[in-house]
C-alpha cells in the first residue's frame, strides 16, 4: 500500500471515529440523553462521514489497487498530485465543517471555500486516476 493511500485511509478512519461519535451523541440526545446543538453537530456528522470517511477511503483504496502499469508505460500517476488532492480534500472538509458552524456573515463564504477545495481535490484525483482505469497486465 503506497504512502498516499496509507495517509488517506488513516485519515478516513479518524473521520469514521469523529462521524460515529457525532452520530451517537445526536441519536442519544434524540433518545433523551442530554441536549446537543443540533445545528452545529448534524452538518459535521454528515461531512465527516460522507466526504471524510466514505469518499476519502474510496480514493485511498483506489490509488492503492487500480492497475499501475500498461504495456507501454507506467501510469501510476504523479504522487505529488495525489498528495495535493488529499491535502485539498482535508482542508475542504474542515472549511466546510467550520462554515456550517460559523456565525452568519461568514457561514456562506467559508462553506463555499471548503466546497471549492473539495471540488479541486476531486478534479485532481480524477485526472491522476483516469489513465489507471484500464485492464491489468494479466488481462492483456
Amino acid at each position, binding site marked *: *500500500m503506497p504512502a498516499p493511500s496509507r495517509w488517506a485511509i488513516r485519515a478516513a478512519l479518524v473521520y469514521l*471515529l469523529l462521524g460515529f461519535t457525532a452520530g451517537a451523541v445526536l*441519536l*442519544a440526545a*434524540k*433518545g*433523551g440523553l442530554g441536549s446537543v446543538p443540533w445545528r452545529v453537530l448534524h452538518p459535521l456528522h454528515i461531512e465527516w462521514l*460522507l466526504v471524510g*470517511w466514505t469518499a476519502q477511503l474510496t480514493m485511498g483504496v483506489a490509488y492503492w489497487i487500480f492497475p499501475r502499469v500498461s504495456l507501454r508505460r507506467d501510469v501510476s500517476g504523479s504522487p505529488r498530485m495525489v498528495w495535493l488532492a488529499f491535502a485539498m480534500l482535508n482542508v475542504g472538509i474542515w472549511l466546510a465543517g467550520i462554515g456550517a458552524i460559523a456565525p452568519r456573515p461568514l457561514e456562506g463564504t467559508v462553506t463555499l471555500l471548503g466546497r471549492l477545495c473539495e471540488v479541486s481535490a476531486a478534479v485532481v484525483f480524477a485526472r491522476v486516476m483516469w489513465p489507471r482505469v484500464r485492464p491489468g497486465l494479466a488481462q492483456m
Partner: protein
Amino acid sequence: MPPLTRWYVRLSFTYLVLALVASTAGAAQQPLGLPGWVAALGPVAVHLFVVGWITQMIFGVAYWMFPRRSAAMPRGDPAPAVATLALLNAGLLLRIVAEPWHATRPSSLTGGMLVASAMAQWLAGVWWVVMMWPRVKER
C-alpha cells in the same frame, strides 16, 4: 473471502433492500394513506443505506483485502471482528424499531432503545478502527 466478510457483505445487501423499501414506504405514506409512523422512516432509510449498506460493505471488504497483520494471524484476533459485526447490526436493528416508534409515541423505553442503539453503533465503529489501524501498512 473469509467467513466474517461473507456475513458483512450478505447483511449489507439485505440493508440495501431494506433501505430502499423504507424509502419507498415513506414516499407512499401520503398517497396510499399508510399509518403515520411510516412517515418517520426517513432517517431510518438514510442510516440503513449509509451505515447498513455502504459502511458495512466497506467493513467487510476491508477486513478481507487490507494487508495482513501477521503470518500467524493474518486478520488479527477474530473475536473483536465478530463483536463489531454484532454490535453494528444490533445497533441498526434497535434503531429501525425505536426511531419511528419514538417519533410517534415517545417514552422512556423508546428513548432508552435509541441510546442503546447509539452506544452499540459507536462501539462497533471504535472497535473496527482499533482492529484495522495496524493493517494500514505498506505490505
